[in-house]
């Protein structure tokens, strides 16, 4: 799986309260992604385009288990590449089917707007402007398969493990 897209850059310790603020979670599910980064980057949701790549610093996604990775995916981002990713956030990326990779040095290698080429077979990230290629941290094939399937729900659906969603809590 290779992803190409325009990059957006964020710093270190971007937490889940910034990605998906608590009070926003009381809103209808479909409206929630509209409020991503409202506190630290207002207006960004109107600028981000389908297929764009998120580049970030250390410990991206620190914080709660809320479906923040889902919101990034619903906004149209194609993947996340960060210096390091919070463990729980990474699990959510995998299980919501949002490709994410840790790649030391990626913050310095990219300026916002650079084109990125992210290869999830070789676990490399290439900057289209500078030509620099960085080696990301590999993760097991098993997790990549879940991501490529679109997350854990499609896999569970296929195995007949899930009941129908409850209309009263949707």
């Amino acid at each position, binding site marked *: 799986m290779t992803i190409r897209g325009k990059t957006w850059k964020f710093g270190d310790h971007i937490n889940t309260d910034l990605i998906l603020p608590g009070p926003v979670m009381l809103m209808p599910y479909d409206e929630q992604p509209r409020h991503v980064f409202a506190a630290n980057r207002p207006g960004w949701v109107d600028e981000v385009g389908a297929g764009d790549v998120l580049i970030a610093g250390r410990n991206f996604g620190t914080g709660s288990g809320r479906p923040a990775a889902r919101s990034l995916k619903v906004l149209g981002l194609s993947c996340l590449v960060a210096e390091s990713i919070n463990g729980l956030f990474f699990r959510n990326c995998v299980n919501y089917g949002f490709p994410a990779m840790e790649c030391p040095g990626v913050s310095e290698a990219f300026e916002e707007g650079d084109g990125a080429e992210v290869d999830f077979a070789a676990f490399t990230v290439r900057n289209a402007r500078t030509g620099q290629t960085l080696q990301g941290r590999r993760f097991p094939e098993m*997790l990549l398969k879940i991501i490529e399937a679109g997350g854990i729900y499609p896999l569970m659906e296929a195995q007949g493990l899930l009941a129908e969603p409850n209309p009263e809590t949707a």
Partner: protein
Amino acid sequence: MGMTMIEKILARAAGLPAVAPGDVVTVGVETAVVIDQNFMHNRMREPKRVWDPDKVVIMLDHIAPADTPMRANIHKAARKFAEKQGITQFHDVNGGLGICHQLVADYGYALPGSVLACVDSHTCSAGAFNCAARGIGHPEMAYVLATGRTWFPVVETVRYEFVSELPRVLNGKDVILHIANTYGDHAMQNVEFVGPGVAAMSMNTRRTIATMCAEISTEFAVFEADERCIEHVRSRSPDAAFEPQAADADAVYADVRTVDLGALEPLVAFPDTVVRNSRPVSEAANVRIDQAFIGSCANGTLDDFEAAATVLKGRKIARGTRLIVTPGSQAVLLEATRRGYVETLLEAGAVVTNSTCGACCGYSNGVLGAGEVCITASTRNFKGRMGSPEASIYLASPATVAASAVRGFIADPRDMM
């Protein structure tokens, strides 16, 4: 090669003789804790059949009792799910109500040497009981409920050796703020807490430290299981079988760090991040506060009521300042009432609420408005965490929070205890 505490727990849960950093292991889950958040917006798609209803506990905690029809429907869905799946361990809006991690401690759901999963990020709280407890995502909880299994990466471990004794005026919060400030985040690392300093620590203190390990982004955080730990679990789960795990003498660590508990002082984390953002309380002393909050899964314990009551005994909270206290569970509230702590707090002017996650996650019972300043003993000081993104959130121990409520400015509790 020897294994660390967490490696031994994961190896046992995976049915393997040994695991090492770099492995990804599939493990059996001993306890799955399902909360009201799971049913919100169908985040957790319900499995047709739960793998083992006796290993599942359901708790309504983030907003309980319900405050809107939407929330009431979420609680209804949880009740219906429990009934349909034959799950009898259910903490509804009743005497057994509380924040999930406090209830795990109160009722002995976390067994030493076992694996526990819940969607809340502060699930690491149960690491105080030598339990590999981890926050997982909502879709993943559906998978756990359907199969009883999940995967974990085995990462390197940092060992913290606690020496000397934590002074009475200090709290587990001061210990973890010290660690977060000195060593930064621990993304993709485990931590284990051992040493002579652990012995004198109450289970509540250990739990505060373990809970706050979410703030330093550890994969797993576990304490060694000493007599006090085992006694706590046995008193609450008398029939449970469990196998505590200790680190091997030749275990390999990323680092071994000593923390002299006796040399620590009250710390305050400044707004927006917990990592490398704390200073001694004296350096925050000119900050005027609108609200003080004591509660959450980290600091809604009986110890925290005691600390607050000690500070507030015979004192009044400052004019123009509000102090909100939210117990971690109904059981904590009941015992704090019996011991007179609640009366002391009320006499000082505090508002004591029902037990729920409440203000900590910005849902209810103490949400902040624009421009307001809060000092809180809860878990996070992230921008927008407790309501308005224009509010400022400082983080400290319950004693520091109570002292600040008395002064109306951030204050050193050592002058009042």
